[in-house]
């Protein structure tokens, strides 16, 4: 808003606006309105504003949001707020004179540039020296012409005339205080209206952005699924793969919770074995579904899957190779599932031991991978001489390292396979009712872990 400074309203006198002249600002909303006018209004026509006074302030209330022209009488910072909204229009604030409620001195139909600052620049309207200048104080009297009724529709083409300086020095003191108070009120009101307007605009644009993002997400998800299932496409869709999986996981979890609730209700109501079996089978095959999705996502973005970013923090902390540890799960279940027959107990213990062994094997494989990768990257010279020498070596190293990274997906698959097999074997060893209870126990355990994450994240921090 340099405009402020620039507008010198030459016309009137120079009562210098030093220090804040009260001025009227009438934002003619767009400078475009003024068609040809030069943009800087120097002396523009000043019509009288007088009437612009107070009422304008009030009247504007509602119209302000709609109208492009607003007239404000204020001193102080209102002007700034205003000028902000006037985009570069060259509207120079006009010193308000006295504000007299209700008159809108806009001359309709005339395109006039309104604003003229009676005196030169105002840097700051800050402290209104309202007292000082009321250049136009009087003009109001003159101007009362038409437009009283408006509520201000100072419609773009109206110009406000600034009163001319002649009247200026009229009444000061008396209404000084009142004027000031009123002006301040108006100013505050105006500011808050502007703020509200800005906020609403922000909301609108955010809403728009939100719908756009949702659409993109939708598209990305579809694309993500498409791409990953076609396997070898060399698209860098990793972003989409991760995103797509996260969304699918969220949906899977919702469905899983629903199924578990159904299962719980069935168990609590002592449903028949057949019924239970149906639900249990449903839960197990739903688990199969997530393993399938994980496999697809691992092809697209193995690091995302390994990172566990799609899990809650506490779950992630106890994660092993992208998911839960089967042996731990079984350990937990053994306690929850009594009574077990001898045979079942043996079966479960063996299962636990086998999965422990398999887990160890995979963990060691992963460690070997890490070491091997480290060795690959460290081979050749590091440090100052760097790889300045041998680009071929560097490229070779990188190629090898890339190959090793490629095996990560295999490990992830094996880990998921372990988990899947564990669930299926468990289901085989246990009776239907026991399986139902086991599934409920597993769900409850993880759901507590998730709740723990939320609590942790929400804890008060000093």
């Amino acid at each position, binding site marked *: 808003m340099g405009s402020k400074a620039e507008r010198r309203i030459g016309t009137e006198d120079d009562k210098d606006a030093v220090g804040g002249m009260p001025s009227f600002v009438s934002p003619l909303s767009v400078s475009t309105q003024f068609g040809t006018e030069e943009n800087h209004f120097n002396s523009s026509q000043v019509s009288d504003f007088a009437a612009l006074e107070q009422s304008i302030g009030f009247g504007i209330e509602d119209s302000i949001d709609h109208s492009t022209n607003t007239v404000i009488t204020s001193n102080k910072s209102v002007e700034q707020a205003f000028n902000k909204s006037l985009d570069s229009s060259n509207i120079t604030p006009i010193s308000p004179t006295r504000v007299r409620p209700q008159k809108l001195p806009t001359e309709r139909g005339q395109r006039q540039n309104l604003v003229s600052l009676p005196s030169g620049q105002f840097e700051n309207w800050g402290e209104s020296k309202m007292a000082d200048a009321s250049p136009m104080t009087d003009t109001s009297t003159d101007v009362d012409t038409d437009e009283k009724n408006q509520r201000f529709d100072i419609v773009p083409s109206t110009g406000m005339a600034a009163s001319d300086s002649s009247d200026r020095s009229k009444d000061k003191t008396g209404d000084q205080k009142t004027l000031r108070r009123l002006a301040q009120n108006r100013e505050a009101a105006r500011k808050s209206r502007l703020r509200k307007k800005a906020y609403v605009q922000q909301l609108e644009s955010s809403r728009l952005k939100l719908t756009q993002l949702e659409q993109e997400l939708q598209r990305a998800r579809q694309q993500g699924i498409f791409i990953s299932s076609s396997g070898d496409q060399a698209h860098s869709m990793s972003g989409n793969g991760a995103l797509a999986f996260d969304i699918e996981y969220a949906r899977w979890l919702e469905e899983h919770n629903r199924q578990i609730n159904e299962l719980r209700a069935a168990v609590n109501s002592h449903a028949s074995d057949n019924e239970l079996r149906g639900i249990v089978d449903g839960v197990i095959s739903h688990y199969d579904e997530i393993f399938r999705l994980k496999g697809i996502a691992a092809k697209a973005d193995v690091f995302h899957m390994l990172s566990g970013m799609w899990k809650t923090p506490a779950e992630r902390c106890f994660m092993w190779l992208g998911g839960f540890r089967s042996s731990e799960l079984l350990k937990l279940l053994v306690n929850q599932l009594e009574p077990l027959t001898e045979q079942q107990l043996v079966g479960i213990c063996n299962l636990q031991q086998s999965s422990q*062994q*398999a887990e*160890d*094997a995979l963990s*060691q494989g992963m460690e070997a991978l890490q070491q091997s990768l480290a060795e690959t990257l460290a081979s050749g010279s590091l440090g100052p001489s760097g790889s300045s020498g041998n680009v071929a070596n560097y490229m070779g190293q990188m190629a090898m390292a890339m190959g090793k990274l490629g*095996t990560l997906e295999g490990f992830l698959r094996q880990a998921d*396979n372990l988990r899947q*097999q564990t669930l299926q*074997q468990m289901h*085989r060893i246990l009776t239907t009712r026991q399986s139902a209870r086991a599934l409920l126990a597993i769900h409850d355990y993880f759901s507590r872990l998730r709740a723990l994450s939320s609590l942790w994240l929400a804890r008060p921090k000093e």
Partner: protein
Amino acid sequence: MDRVSRLAQQKAVVIFSKTTCCMCHAIKTLFYELGVSPAIHELDEDPRGREMERALLSLGFSPSVPAVFIGGRLVDSTNTIMSLHLNGSLVPMLKAAGAIWL
């Protein structure tokens, strides 16, 4: 191919591997844990490794290693091995092949 089959018959458990392959390392670890001492052939250290690798690929192994033969019979894939272990059939298989006692 011949060489592969021949080698595969030589011991109860034969594993074709590569020194650089970490999944092979995992499988080997598993068998050691089970008390098996498999015969391990590192294809990248064997002069005829390439040929053997091709043979394995032709059997449908992808990647070619690790390839595990128990009692002369090929076990499908790492997946299969893990699954067999979890369902408790790996150990009996090993016993039957004479790879472990007890």
